[in-house]
């Protein structure tokens, strides 16, 4: 999706607040929103669908409201979409449904087990052989799909080199549409000067993890 979330290389956002106080949460509601996102979800959501729901927030809200506020909006919208909540319920702040069985409380020990259990793996075995080997020169695709994708706009139509092969991973674009399809995943390295006109010959590089279908072989 070609939305405002795709921020790499965009200009005009000003300086960074480097003096931020180093605490996990800057307000109680931030911590609670984080926690809700850890333990409440609809069973068929995928991480990529959740990210897409977040990208679909109104562009001005996306850029201007606090970070965890966008999580709240994402969670609410995704729950409404999947039927756990209704718009009326959230607006009226009153549950229309008969309370179901409560989830059992979890204590701190349960939580540490839960955190470890969150080490979700996205690599999959597939039959297809990887199309590229480390050192191969590639070009990223030029046209960005309308749906969720993880090929950032700044890295489209650009020459890169395969830096590493990570095996096959669940393909984000398909997963955001509810389909689990695995595809070979690579770290692709780009010279700064191929991405940004002002970088010139600066020897800085950008490494981006990209699925095979984002890539074409470089023409010789």
């Amino acid at each position: 999706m070609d939305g405002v979330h795709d921020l790499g290389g965009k200009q005009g956002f000003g300086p960074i607040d480097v003096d931020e106080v180093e605490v996990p949460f800057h307000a109680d509601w931030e911590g609670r929103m984080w926690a809700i996102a850890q333990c409440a979800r609809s069973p068929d959501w995928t991480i990529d669908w959740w990210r897409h729901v977040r990208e679909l927030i109104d562009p001005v809200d996306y850029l201007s409201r606090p970070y965890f506020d966008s999580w709240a909006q994402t969670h609410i919208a995704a729950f409404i979409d999947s039927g756990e909540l209704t718009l009326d319920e959230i607006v009226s702040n009153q549950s229309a449904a008969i309370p179901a069985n409560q989830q059992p409380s979890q204590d701190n020990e349960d939580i540490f087990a839960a955190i470890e259990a969150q080490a979700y793996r996205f690599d999959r075995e597939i039959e297809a052989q990887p199309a590229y080997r480390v050192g191969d020169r590639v070009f990223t695709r030029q046209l960005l799909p309308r749906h969720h994708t993880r090929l950032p706009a700044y890295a489209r139509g650009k020459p890169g080199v395969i830096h590493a092969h990570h095996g096959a991973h669940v393909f984000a674009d398909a997963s955001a549409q509810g389909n689990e399809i695995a595809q070979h995943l690579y770290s692709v390295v780009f010279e700064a000067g191929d991405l940004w006109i002002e970088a010139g010959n600066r020897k800085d590089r950008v490494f981006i993890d990209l699925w095979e279908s984002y890539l074409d072989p470089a023409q010789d």
Partner: protein
Amino acid sequence: MTSFDPDAVSKIHRHLHSHLPSESALRVKALESLLVEKGLVDSATIDAWVEAYSEEVGPKRGALVVAKAWIDPGFKSRLMQDAVSAIDELGYLGKATAHLKVVENTATIHNLVVCTLCSCYPFSILGIAPNWYKTAAYRSRAVRDPRGVLEEFGVDLDDDIEVRVWDSTAELRYLVLPQRPEATQGFSEAALAKLVTRNSMIGTHRTLSPGSEG
């Protein structure tokens, strides 16, 4: 059932935009109380999650990984080869670290981590990401003007140091292994870990010193 339909969700967002209370705290409160009423979450469980990420799961985990790598060449070699197993040895494997990679700073290389598309971060070893990491300013500039960003963080890089920016676009996550500070011979693992700043593991801090705070 989830629709997986962006148009449907855009419409929901527009309704929410018009009808949700403006204050974030009220939005989250409404969400929590409805989920509790419906039996989808439990408030004590939420308390426990907040506590875990406020106290235990934070950058001191990453700092210990770094200190151990400085002291124990075997651990460092395992960490660079297979960071997932290495952090699992310490019980730190968890959210967003099942495909962790460690990238090492050297005298001629500086690494910087960003997620331009959202805010991916290795939570189980660094805890909650700082706000600046999630801002449009950092996300937009880190890939295009990493030296300018580093300068704002007080990091002045020589021209001959190569900057490597890692944009976390898939499920891999990156941890920067900073250089061991000078004059720390004989420091214990715990003493070394105290010198490792969170920002040094993201790449917005470079030169650690025996005086820096972990």
